[in-house]
C-alpha cells in the first residue's frame, strides 16, 4: 500500500454531515480499518455466560483474526489466538465445547485452556525450548462489563470503561430487565451473511428513519406496536454517546403509554411469573418503571448491537462482505420472558427474518449503489437544525434524525486519523 493510500485526506472523505461512497467500497480503506479500528480499539468478542464452566471455550473473532474465548482452570476468561504457535495451523476447529487442553492436529503441540504450552510431540527434537515463549498468542487487553467481554489489540489506550463512557449505562439498564440483574447468552446464534460493508449495518442499527419504509410490509400485517415509535410524531430520541456509541431511546414513547411490558408487546397480566419476580427483586414501584422503560436499543461501536430483545454482533469479512451474528437476549430468572424473547427473535431476525431480511436487502442495495460514482456524497444531514443536548450533555435528536450516523463518523474519523 502506498503512502497516499495509507494517509488519505480524511477531511475529503468525511464531513460533518456527509461521507464519500469510497469509504464503503475501497479495499485499502478496509485494510486501514482493520489496523486502526478492529485491531486497536475495544471490540466486543463474547459473553461470559457462553463459557460458564472452567475449560469451556467458544470460537469468536476480532476483525479477520480467529479468537478462542476460553475459561481457564481458575475461572479466568482468556482471549487466545486460534493459531498453533508451532507452524500457524488453526488449533481448534470445533465451534464450542469444553476442553482442558487443545491438541494441534498437525504436529500434536498441546495447549492448556489458559493458553500455556503444555507440551509437544517428540520433545527431544528441541533443545531448551522455552515453553513460556510458545504459549498461544493472546489479545493483550481483555476486559468485561456486565459479562460482555471485549478485547483490544492495543497494549495501551483508554480503559474499557473510558471507551464505553456514557453508553455503559445502557448495559446497566439492560441488566435490570432480569430479576437477578444478569444477562445470559445461551440460545445459539443465527449467522446472516450480507454482501455489504460492515458500516452499513453499524449505521442502520440506530437509524430511526428507515423502519416506516423498509419494514412497512410487516407493520401492515402485524400489530407489533413498533411502527409508531419511528413516525414523524414520535417522541423517541436518537442519542450520540460519543466514542461512536449511539442509541435510539424509546423510553419517552413507552412512558407515554405507561403500561408495563408494552415495550415487549405484552402485559404484566400475561406474564404473571415474570412480573411477580420483578416486584420481589426491585419493589413494586421500581419494577413497574423498569417494565415500562424496557430494554435499550444501543449500538456499541464498532460491533455490539443490543436491539431490545436480541443481540447482534457485526463481523467484517471483507470490504463488501459481512456477517450479522444474532441471538435472543436471555435474562437470568425470567423463563417466561425468555421464551417469548426467543420466539420473537426467531420471527424477526436472521436470514429469513420478517424484519432483518429487508434491512439486509437494503445493505446490499446500498452497497451496489455506492459503486455508482466516486464523487457523490452520502448525505447525513437530517435533523441537524434540531439537535440539542440532554441533561447529561449528550447530543440528542428526533427518532428519525441522523444524529447517530454523524456521531459514528466523527469517531471513525478520529480513529482513522491516528496513523
Amino acid at each position, binding site marked *: 500500500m502506498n503512502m497516499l493510500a495509507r494517509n488519505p485526506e480524511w477531511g475529503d472523505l468525511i464531513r460533518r454531515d456527509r461521507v464519500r461512497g469510497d469509504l464503503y467500497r475501497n479495499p485499502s480503506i478496509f485494510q486501514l480499518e482493520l489496523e486502526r479500528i478492529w485491531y486497536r480499539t475495544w471490540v466486543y468478542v463474547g459473553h461470559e455466560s457462553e463459557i460458564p464452566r472452567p475449560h469451556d471455550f467458544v470460537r469468536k473473532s476480532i476483525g479477520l483474526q480467529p479468537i478462542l474465548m476460553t475459561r481457564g482452570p481458575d475461572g479466568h476468561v482468556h482471549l487466545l489466538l486460534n493459531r498453533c504457535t508451532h507452524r500457524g495451523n488453526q488449533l481448534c476447529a470445533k*465451534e464450542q465445547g469444553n476442553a482442558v487442553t487443545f491438541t494441534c492436529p498437525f504436529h500434536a503441540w498441546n495447549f492448556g485452556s489458559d493458553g500455556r504450552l503444555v507440551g509437544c510431540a517428540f520433545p527431544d527434537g528441541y533443545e531448551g525450548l522455552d515453553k513460556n515463549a510458545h504459549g498461544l498468542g493472546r489479545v493483550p487487553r481483555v476486559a468485561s462489563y456486565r459479562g460482555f467481554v471485549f478485547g483490544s489489540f492495543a497494549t495501551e489506550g483508554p480503559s474499557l470503561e473510558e471507551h464505553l463512557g456514557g453508553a455503559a449505562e445502557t448495559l446497566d439498564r439492560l441488566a435490570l430487565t432480569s430479576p437477578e440483574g444478569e444477562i445470559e447468552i*445461551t*440460545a*445459539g*446464534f*443465527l*449467522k*446472516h*451473511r*450480507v*454482501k455489504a460493508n460492515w458500516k452499513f449495518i453499524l449505521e442502520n442499527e440506530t437509524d430511526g428513519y428507515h423502519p416506516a419504509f*423498509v419494514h*412497512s*410490509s*410487516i407493520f*401492515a*400485517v*402485524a400489530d407489533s406496536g413498533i411502527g409508531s415509535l419511528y413516525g414523524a410524531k414520535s417522541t423517541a430520541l436518537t442519542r450520540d454517546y460519543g466514542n461512536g456509541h449511539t442509541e435510539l431511546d424509546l423510553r419517552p414513547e413507552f412512558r407515554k403509554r405507561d403500561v408495563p411490558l408494552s415495550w415487549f408487546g405484552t402485559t404484566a397480566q400475561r406474564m404473571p411469573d415474570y412480573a411477580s419476580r420483578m416486584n420481589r427483586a426491585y419493589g413494586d414501584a421500581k419494577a413497574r418503571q423498569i417494565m415500562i422503560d424496557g430494554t435499550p436499543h444501543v449500538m456499541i461501536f464498532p460491533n455490539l448491537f443490543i436491539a431490545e430483545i436480541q443481540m447482534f454482533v457485526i463481523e467484517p469479512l471483507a470490504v463488501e462482505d459481512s*456477517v450479522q*451474528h*444474532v*441471538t*435472543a437476549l436471555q435474562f437470568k430468572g425470567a423463563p417466561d420472558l425468555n*421464551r417469548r424473547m*426467543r*420466539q420473537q*427473535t*426467531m*420471527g424477526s431476525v*436472521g*436470514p*429469513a427474518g*420478517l424484519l432483518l*431480511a*429487508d434491512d*439486509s*436487502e*437494503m445493505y*446490499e*442495495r446500498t452497497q451496489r449503489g455506492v459503486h455508482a460514482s466516486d464523487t457523490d456524497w452520502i448525505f447525513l444531514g437530517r435533523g441537524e437544525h434540531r439537535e440539542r443536548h440532554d441533561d447529561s450533555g449528550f447530543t440528542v435528536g428526533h427518532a428519525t434524525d441522523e444524529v447517530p450516523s454523524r456521531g459514528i463518523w466523527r469517531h471513525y474519523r478520529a480513529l482513522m486519523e491516528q496513523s
Partner: protein
Amino acid sequence: MMQVQSRADLICDISQFLFREARYADDHRYEDWEALWAEDGVYWIPANGDDIDPERQMSIIYDNRSRISLRVKQLLTGKRHTQEPQSRLRRIVGDIELVKADASELHVACNTIIFESALRGDIIWASRNEFVLRRHGDDFRIARKKVALVNNDKAIFTMSFLV
C-alpha cells in the same frame, strides 16, 4: 380407501403432493402454498445442526401456523423488499422415502436442491426435508415440515422465499 391403496400408489400420491408444494413455492403462489398446511402446522428450518431443540435454541425459521400465515401475508403486501423483485426459483425434490405410516399421519423424507437467482446473485441451497403429512380427503395437509439445510452451521445469505 387406504386399505386397498398399494404402497406404490401411496408413494406416488405423496410424491405428487411434494412436487406440487415445491412448485407453489417456486412460483410464489403464496396462498396456494399456505392452503397446503394443516391448522396446527409447524414450519421449521433449524440452525447450527439438524437436531437442535427449537424450543431452546435459535432456528432460521420456527413458525407455528399463525406465523406461517403472517409470513405469507407479508409476502402478499408487495412491499417485502427482499422479495421485490421475487427470486427466480427452481427446485428438485428427490430421494422420496416413506419413513413411517399410520392411519392418520405419514412421515416422509426427501432431499431438495434449490437454485435461487436473486438481485444479490445466484445461490444453490441443499437440504434434507422431513414432512409429517396428514390425509385430507384425497389429498394431504402438512402437519410439519423440517428443512435441514446442509450449510445451516455457516453464515448464510438471506433466504426470504418459501423454502
